[in-house]
């Protein structure tokens, strides 16, 4: 059916890339199963650690920290796996920078396709297999921690959550693409990429909810693009974003997507002109 609709259109070739890569990745689906299941182990330590904090001397487990109860905290970390499942695009910026640095980009430039969409389809294929596996592995894990999932999201929250996941995915793709193209100007950026990765890990709220940070840091950290890669989707679904704030949260996210899309396009156009097409 897809063939009927897409064949002959410019989108057809990208569909072929996507389906080929998906089939390739499916061959290693059991490797994905290990990856998906093991990644939940930190949730165990996190639950115990926060339980200890919420029951340390002076607390009895009912207090709130940064406006969050213990249940909110566990829900936050659990939903973080879903959000990062959309926003984390491991290795993309490194692969792009290596393609540029070693002159491997040649083999893509001579083909009648966009390198950006090629990379996007490649990463999307990874995500599709990841989510296929997650379809079987996530529900049992969420069932195990059901006692902590106390907030019932409203229709608005569900809708905003799905939009925020799309924003998370596109910020992940567009930001990493932009960072990868820096290799046109700087030859060796692997250290820089590591610093970016750590920043992303921290400022996305993956390590700890951003609202536990001192107020001065929080007020700008939450509007940074990284917040959309984890913090906001989680906060929306656990009901910490009031309805009148929802428009602002989603709006700023969409602005970041637009910003990275335009900046990335511009940098790519400038970069390709500088590209020397040799290895080094």
């Amino acid at each position, binding site marked *: 059916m897809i063939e009927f609709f897409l064949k002959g259109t410019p989108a057809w070739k990208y569909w072929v890339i996507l389906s080929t890569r998906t089939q390739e990745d499916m061959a*290693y689906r*059991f*490797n*994905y199963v*290990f*990856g998906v299941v*093991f*990644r939940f*182990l*930190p949730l*165990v*330590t996190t639950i*115990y*650690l926060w*339980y*200890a*904090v919420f029951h*340390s*001397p*002076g*607390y009895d487990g009912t207090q709130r*920290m940064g406006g969050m109860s213990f249940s909110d905290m566990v829900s936050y970390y659990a939903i973080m796996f879903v959000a990062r499942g959309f926003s984390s695009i491991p290795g993309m910026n490194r692969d792009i920078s290596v393609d540029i640095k070693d002159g491997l980009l040649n083999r893509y430039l001579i083909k009648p396709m966009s390198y950006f969409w090629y990379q996007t389809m490649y990463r999307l294929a990874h995500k599709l297999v990841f989510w296929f596996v997650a379809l079987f592995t996530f529900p049992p894990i969420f069932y195990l921690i059901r006692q902590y999932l106390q907030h019932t999201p409203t229709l608005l929250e569900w809708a905003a959550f799905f939009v925020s996941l799309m924003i998370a995915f596109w910020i992940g793709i567009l930001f990493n693409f932009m960072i990868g193209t820096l290799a046109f100007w700087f030859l060796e950026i*692997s*250290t820089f990429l*590591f*610093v970016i990765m*750590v920043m992303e*890990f*921290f400022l996305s709220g993956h*390590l*700890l909810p951003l609202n*536990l*940070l001192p107020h001065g840091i929080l007020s700008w950290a939450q509007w940074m693009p990284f917040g959309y890669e984890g913090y906001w989707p989680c906060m929306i679904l656990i009901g910490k974003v009031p309805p009148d704030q929802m428009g602002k949260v989603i709006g700023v996210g969409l602005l970041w997507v637009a910003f990275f899309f335009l900046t990335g396009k511009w940098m790519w156009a400038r970069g390709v002109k500088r590209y020397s097409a040799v290895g080094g």
Partner: protein
Amino acid sequence: MISTLGRYSRMTLLMMKNCLIREMQFRSNFVIRLFTEVIWLGMQIVYVAVLYGVTQTIGGWNVWQMVMLLGTNHILTQLFEAFFFDNCTKLVDQIRLGDLDFILIKPVNPQFLVSLRYTDYASMTNSLVGFAMIGYAIHRLGIAITPLEAFLFLLLIVNGILILYAMTFCLSVLTFWIGRASNLFELYYQLTQFTRYPGEIYRWGLRIALLTVIPMLVVSNFPVKMLLGGLFNAWLGYACAIGLIFFAATVWIWNLGLRRYRSASS
């Protein structure tokens, strides 16, 4: 016996020397590795700082005791990575692609050779940061450490590295049976989560598991307890016994796996 020991020590030193020569050809890479590991550690310190911003003790551990645990954990993981981790990851490809042939034809114990072939000096240097953290925390706690305690601390560190080696090596050796499974190493990374925090935060069922079948508390909590003066002699003997049992298991599984080795690429 003595001559065998001498021969293997000489070989170890020679392999380490070769790696040092190789490392010195890429000095900027060495500095970058130091830098990145320190950033990673810094982030963990921020995490602990935020936690102790809202509470005084976690599982009965105050902030400087927690810093000692963080430092100990840093020493353990860095020294383990310095000596064994690269070797364990490389072993997977050696088995899969049939490169193990070149190891097996040499007149040395193959497990010794595949386990200690490469040394990572950046990680080794980095472990010093962990010692500095422990030193500062001891100073802030105002406790005195006897030479015996310091010695037993180091013994428990070595024991902990041995346990980490045993678990990771066994994961690599699984390649003999299941072929390609790079995500298995994800298990190593995720299991080291359990070494980062005090054992007191876990419930008894999990705590017993972490003391026996996955002895992550023996790895990281025991050395700190030794310095804090809360580890009984019986526990010390127990820790060493666990270390020896785990090491014996690697030899057994390695030999079992070798029988399945097909010396062919897949």
